[in-house]
């Protein structure tokens, strides 16, 4: 049994040049506050996103026809791992670049692609994910938001929740029940919903850190043209599953606490206590391994192979790692969490947000269930 096929990763020749460009851009325009550099892919800075677009670092793998740059998947991987490791404020465009753009390009009609994709590649158009509903969390196949056909239009009613960035996004790709009376995975479709469409309203949800990142989104008789249907009617479940494997496969699933690891090393430079030194060693070993695993998933994606199972494994391991870092740092070093000393304040922030790492994008238990099925259990 070898569940995770380890192939050598062919790092692109352009990698050093791409890294240098990203590092320069982040040094000039990135986030200065170390606390905000932690978990950076939820921190929106539209100006930074626009600069990335200008530099040709968004929509990197997309066709030029739609404003993309026709670079390879691994070149994109190099750019995003640099941005994440540096704690750049990439939240505004993250979902658009990672999943909404590729989804539209793969499944969208010309009208949808022309309307949304070039703006995403410029870093000016942002997207959000409309999966979860109040009664549909892990059990996603139970979604109830509905689309009813009315002549040439679709009429949407219902509610999404936990929608990250709904308030800064221009559109949502939503999983919706398009066949009345259908059950579970049947009768679902994906729709592209402009956030400024009449009948769409957004209500902030403040998270436990006091930040406003996710929202409730309500649909009240929202009328969409026939062209708003993404892909095939009734194929929403299959399409959303493919979307989730894009959502789960990236290096953001292990790098959310990298800033704190680096602060730990900085602390250890001054204080050579053996327990801290050993912790640095252990976390470095994990970081190195996870980076290889994550890159080999990207390489598989680049070869066009099914990478869903490997992506799930890397997300599960990666989430456990990024979640453990603040706990281990707190355990290893005496600190006053309420002080504004650097190490303490980054630790305090990450301790607060770390529980979300194994919830967002599919919970730990759901991921392990998928892995178990891959093993031939269930």
């Amino acid at each position: 049994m070898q569940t995770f096929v380890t192939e050598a990763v062919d790092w692109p020749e352009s990698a050093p040049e791409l890294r240098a460009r990203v590092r320069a851009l982040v040094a000039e325009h990135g986030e200065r506050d170390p606390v905000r550099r932690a978990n950076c892919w939820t921190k929106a800075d539209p100006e930074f996103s626009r600069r990335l677009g200008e530099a040709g670092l968004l929509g990197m793998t997309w066709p030029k026809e739609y404003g993309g740059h026709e670079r390879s998947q691994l070149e994109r991987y190099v750019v995003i791992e640099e941005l994440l490791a540096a704690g750049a404020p990439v939240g505004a465009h993250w979902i658009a670049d990672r999943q909404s753009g590729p989804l539209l390009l793969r499944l969208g009609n010309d009208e949808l692609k022309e309307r949304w994709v070039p703006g995403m590649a410029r870093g000016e158009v942002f997207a959000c994910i409309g999966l979860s509903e109040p009664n549909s969390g892990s059990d996603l196949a139970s979604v109830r938001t509905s689309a009813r056909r009315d002549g040439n239009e679709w009429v949407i009613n219902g509610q999404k929740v936990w929608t990250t960035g709904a308030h800064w996004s221009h559109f949502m790709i939503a999983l919706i029940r398009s066949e009345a009376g259908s059950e579970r995975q049947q009768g679902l479709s994906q729709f592209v919903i402009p956030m400024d469409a009449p009948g769409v309203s957004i209500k902030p949800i403040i998270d436990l850190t006091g930040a406003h990142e996710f929202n409730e989104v309500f649909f009240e008789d929202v009328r969409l043209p026939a062209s708003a249907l993404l892909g095939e009617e009734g194929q929403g479940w299959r399409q959303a599953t493919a979307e989730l494997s894009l959502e789960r496969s990236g290096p953001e699933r292990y790098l959310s606490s990298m800033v704190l690891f680096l602060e730990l090393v900085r602390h250890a430079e001054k204080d050579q206590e053996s327990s801290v030194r050993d912790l640095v060693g252990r976390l470095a070993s994990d970081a190195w391994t996870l980076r290889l695993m994550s890159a080999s998933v990207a390489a598989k994606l680049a070869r066009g192979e099914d990478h869903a199972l490997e992506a799930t494994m890397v997300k599960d391991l990666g989430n456990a790692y990024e979640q453990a870092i603040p706990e281990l740092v707190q355990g290893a070093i005496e600190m006053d969490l309420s002080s504004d000393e650097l190490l303490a304040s980054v630790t305090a922030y990450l301790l607060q947000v770390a529980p979300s790492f194994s919830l967002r994008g599919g919970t730990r238990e759901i991921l392990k269930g998928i892995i178990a099925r891959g093993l031939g259990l269930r």
Partner: protein
Amino acid sequence: MSDTRRMLAEMADPLFAELGFASTDSDWSRLDELGLPLLLVPEADGGFGGDHVDALTVFRLAGFHALGLPLVDRIVASRAEEGTEAHFHFGAFARTAQIAGALDAALAMSVAYVNERQQFGRPLGKFQAVQQELATFACEAAAANCAAMGAAEALDRGDAGFEIAAAKLRANRAASEGARIAHQVHGAIGFTQEYPLHQFTGRLRQWRSDFGGDAYWSKELGESVIERGADAFWPDLTARTD
């Protein structure tokens, strides 16, 4: 996978399976026939001329079948003189690959067992608690395999001090977690001498300490990372593969 490597795997796999953990000194001739002890000796010197990914392939299979003969140690000894740092490092790489193989074997054994064994009127593998443990196990086995591959690639590139340290430490932790779960899902049968699980978990326990345990490698790695400093960590990490 290159053709010669696939050939190598196709030769070694059935042979190691046949010899297994009960192999004895008289079986060396079988390994000699295939030139396996000379895996890393250059072709010009009458050896197989394998690279480090070839070595990984053979070491991993030796772990997967819990090969009784110390073929791996012989190959390691052909590379560097015992007592030298090079020998210690190469040995750590070899154990990483063996751990990866043994974890995959113990995982396969565990999955087969829970699909077979019935309690409460259904296979154990239908219980979510059992599934979640085995999913954790699969991730650990995957991590050990990736770590072994990463170290092999680094050895082929040249200096692999960092990678071997990182890989052995990661594999050590996977060895401990994997052995724990394998025994737990097997229940009492796995605690018998007759049932072969201990051939794997016993080796995993031994290999975790061989050529540097967790304490050794976390100290080594921690010191080297701290010495380079926080700002060098990420640029160093990426420069090593670019």
